[in-house]
């Protein structure tokens, strides 16, 4: 696709294919390619080499419109809620963040608010041990809101810097499950002003257009503050975050690059866009 190509229909079709293949979504892609064609015409661009910087710039623009850092509490513990559909990487992402914060010298507490899935509490407990952080848990089948309430109380009384609440995977088209996660948020908000300070949606980078629907629904219920894009170490490009960024303006804050505690990086839009074209 790269050098010395004529900017004809075939070229633009192949460009579309690259972007579609990255899961950027056909509507977003068609709109973007139209803009690029127009820009090429206006700027009288004839070389295919000059198109790529334009494409990268356009995508980066969409992604950079948002702030990247975490919102830390002015005083008291920072509360981070982690949500998302089943199996995307919520629990593992929490383990990675816990490890990261611990390395930064922060006092970390985890809340095992997935009281539903088989061995979910065991899984988070093992990660807590591995990362060397504390955990608040009840028995399986307990009310997630009750676990959360206890965890917030403990976060304050133990004077921790950050509390992370792990929730059960849930599909966004299950009204009762979405209301449950709304209730968890309210419990936190009631106990601590301005909390939760972060509500992160974890997305699986292999997900297609349904990710946009997930983001919309979770955002509607919770007012998301950020996205964690997990499993970017596979062959999927995670282009779904471009449409999500465009439509909902939710910033991608972290990316997951593996199954280990260290496999987390802050989101960098330039590196992300470069990887789209690899």
């Amino acid at each position, binding site marked *: 696709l790269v050098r010395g190509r004529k900017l004809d229909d075939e070229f633009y079709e192949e460009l579309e294919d690259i972007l579609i293949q990255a899961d950027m979504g056909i509507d977003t892609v068609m709109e973007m390619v139209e803009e690029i064609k127009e820009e090429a015409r206006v700027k009288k661009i004839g070389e295919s080499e000059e198109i790529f910087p334009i494409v990268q710039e356009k995508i980066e623009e969409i992604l950079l419109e948002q702030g990247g850092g975490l919102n830390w509490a002015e005083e008291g513990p920072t509360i981070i809620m982690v949500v998302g559909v089943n199996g995307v990487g919520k629990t593992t992402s929490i383990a990675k963040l816990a490890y990261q914060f611990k390395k930064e010298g922060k006092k970390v507490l985890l809340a095992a608010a997935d009281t539903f899935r088989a061995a979910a509490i065991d899984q988070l407990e093992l990660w807590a041990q591995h990362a060397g952080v504390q955990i608040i848990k009840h028995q399986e089948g307990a009310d997630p809101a009750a676990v959360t309430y206890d965890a917030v109380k403990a976060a304050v009384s133990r004077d921790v810097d950050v509390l992370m609440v792990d929730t059960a995977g849930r599909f966004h088209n299950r009204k009762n499950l979405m209301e449950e996660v709304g209730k968890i948020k309210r419990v936190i908000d009631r106990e601590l002003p301005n909390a939760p300070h972060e509500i992160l949606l974890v997305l699986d980078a292999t997900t*297609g257009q349904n990710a946009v629907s997930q983001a919309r629904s979770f955002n509607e219920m919770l007012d998301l503050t950020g996205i964690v894009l997990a499993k970017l170490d596979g062959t999927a490009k995670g282009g779904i975050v471009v449409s999500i960024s465009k439509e909902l303006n939710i910033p991608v804050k972290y990316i997951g690059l593996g199954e280990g505690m260290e496999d987390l990086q802050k989101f960098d839009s330039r590196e992300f866009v470069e990887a789209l074209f690899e």
Partner: protein
Amino acid sequence: SLTDKLQSIFRNLKGKGKLSEKDVKAALREVRLALLEADVNYKIVRDFIKKIQEKAIGQEVFESLTPAQQVIKIVNNELSELMGGTQSKIEMAQDPPTIILMAGLQGSGKTTTAGKLAKNFKSSGRSPLLVAGDVYRPAAIKQLQVVGERVGVPVFNMGTAKTPPEIALASIGHAKSNNNDVILIDTAGRLHIDEDLMEELQEIKKVVGPHEILLVVDAMTGQDAVNVAKAFNDELGITGVVLTKLDGDARGGAALSVRAVTGRPIKYVGLGEKLDALEVFHPDRMASRILG
């Protein structure tokens, strides 16, 4: 919906007659968009549209249908045929135990599906055995044990000290001495580009010779589905696919991509977190869902 979009395309087609090339191409442009929105891989979409174009051009429009309905019917039939038409259940082996190997990406639903299949086999009079072949994920063995308890099926495990091929091999002896006639081997999620872990699966296959190798695929998977399916099939040789999390609202185009690139049948679909949420795959229902 796609039907509405096509109706508006064909609004100018007066009365009956044959589907012209111009009309079919206009209609298929909409079908292409629908398939891409549904996450069908762009290459598969291209081949599919070409095929439909050849079939549709020059066709007589049926008495009872509008041209739009006619095109949808052709597309729907072609899609259903593409996705079904072969044996969609698990065959019992001539000499037991029947060995089933679960494989797939991280988080796709292997452990839960193994439990669902075990429950299914138990209620049809079989004596299944679940095998804890994931020695990596924290609490993976415990998860399978809880699942086994919930469906009343025994779980064979050797902790995390043995390798998955060793565990798989030992499970056969265990099954035979306990009269289990179906073995379901759960494995760790892995990337198709992880050479060591793909080799581990090949090793398991070599030592136990599974009768079924099921690729478990998340219904919300996007364009990457072809890469995953092709790699697992090329390196392992899968015998079937289970499409999970179909109770979500993903259109599920991955189903077509996986089927097109491997030629293997989708045998079951996962429709929820509960261990009874498993159904046989219905190609015609999947076709309508993908088309939206």
